[in-house]
């Protein structure tokens, strides 16, 4: 009897952009992430799915040390990006977050112009030597985010004046302006209508060529549409990780099956 594919064979150590080993996260006394180990592939979209409170967002936030900002939060275990331990005391979290960008659930442009929103990162990281270099970064970031054509005539209008979908793509442009290698997305489409969602999904698919993308989503259909690999979290545990087509057609774990088919009791 042939298995359609074997999960272990599809994820080896040799091709891993982000490697997490035995990661534990505690919020005070609460053990929020329990011994999670995963390899996340480069130039691919990995979706994290699971019910509310399962730890998927918490785990996502360990990848750029966003949990550092929460006093009672404690992270144990190892997370490597390209073999570099990101929790090493020598690592500067600000530099790390330039390398590992993030896009949030609610579009959160700065109360500044479209131009300044995208210019913010390159300015604080000193990525442009002069105005024309900065202009180039702005244009190419907005191009990559699929927003250039829509905003090129009003770059100095406030970012907050754009539609929700445009604001989210502006936030993606802002994230890619500092040339990250990894982009983390925490439910980037949950506040968007289906058309704006489709545009962001199309963008995610294009960005995949050049970035490693990890997306947390509550929409199973979205995970199925945009990702190559899917990881299912439940009660702080990584239950199952594999090729997206396998997870959504023949998951191996009953908990995954119950969740994706809407049977969770």
């Amino acid at each position, binding site marked *: 009897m042939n298995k359609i594919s074997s999960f272990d064979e599809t994820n080896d150590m040799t091709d891993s952009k982000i490697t997490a080993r035995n990661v534990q996260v505690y919020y005070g006394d609460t053990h929020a992430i329990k011994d999670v180990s995963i390899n996340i592939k480069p130039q691919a979209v990995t979706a994290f799915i699971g019910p509310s409170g399962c730890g998927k967002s918490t785990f996502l936030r360990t990848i750029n040390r966003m949990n550092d900002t929460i006093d009672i939060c404690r992270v144990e275990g190892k997370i490597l990006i390209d073999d570099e331990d990101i929790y090493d005391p020598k690592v500067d979290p600000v530099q790390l977050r330039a390398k590992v960008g993030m896009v949030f659930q609610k579009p959160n442009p700065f109360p500044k112009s479209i131009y300044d929103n995208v210019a913010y990162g390159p300015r604080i990281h000193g990525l442009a030597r002069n105005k024309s270099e900065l202009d180039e970064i702005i244009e190419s970031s907005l191009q990559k985010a699929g927003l250039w054509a829509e905003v090129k005539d009003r770059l100095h209008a406030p970012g907050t004046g754009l539609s929700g979908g445009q604001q989210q793509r502006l936030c993606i442009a802002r994230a890619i302006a500092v040339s990250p290698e990894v982009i983390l997305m925490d439910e980037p489409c949950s506040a968007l209508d289906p058309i704006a969602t489709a545009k962001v999904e199309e963008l995610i698919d294009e960005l995949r060529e050049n970035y490693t993308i990890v997306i947390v989503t509550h929409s199973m259909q979205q995970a199925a549409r945009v990702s190559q690999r899917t990881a299912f979290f439940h009660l702080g545990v990584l239950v199952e990780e594999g090729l997206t087509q396998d997870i959504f*057609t023949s998951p191996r774990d009953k908990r995954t099956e119950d969740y994706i088919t809407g049977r969770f*009791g």
Partner: protein
Amino acid sequence: MADHIVKSYDEELSALAGKIAEMGGLAEVIVNNSVSALVTQDLELARQTIAQDKRIDDLLQEIEMRLIEIIARRQPLGKDLREIVSAGRIANDLERVGDMAKNIAKRVIAIDAGLNSKQLAIGLEHLTELALNQLKRVLDAYASQNADMAAKVQEDDAEVDAVYTSLFRELLTYMMEDPRNITQCAHLLFCAKNIERIGDHATNIAENVYYMVSGDRLSEDRPKVDELGDKVS
């Protein structure tokens, strides 16, 4: 398996399984009736069988509509998705089984003379019994979601093939013995082939049930026996 949070989804899936069961039951009946009509030369039963096949065709259409509706409204995943896809394929196989029976029934009318060999009739009935048993078991496997039973059905198709092959040789012998037998034997050959094909459809269904239940594919490289022998393979 636990119920869906949305109860109407469970109701839709079980209604679908009910329609498949109805279709399967009907297919069994008309196969049985077509061969009875053939053996007893019952033209009236043959005509009834032809008419009954229409109901199977209607059921296929109804099932297809339901499938499309479920896909559009529920976007099934996991086991549900496999169940939906398998239901469509199984319904198609059952519809073909109905066609095979209908074809036999039409030949009853075309032959329009009693079978002149008791032995042939026994052979055909035996083949039918085997094929129907395969069909019955695979429908049970579907209803009880039993992958092992489905695997066994796939394995046992070889027996149907073997009996068909021996019938084929027997019919050839009759034709060689007396050319006046040829017309009837040619029809009977098609009937036997139809029954053998019913076994194949049962096997297809078995493979779909196996996939539906387990998520894995049954290997299809089982030993095949047919009238072509090992000259063609």
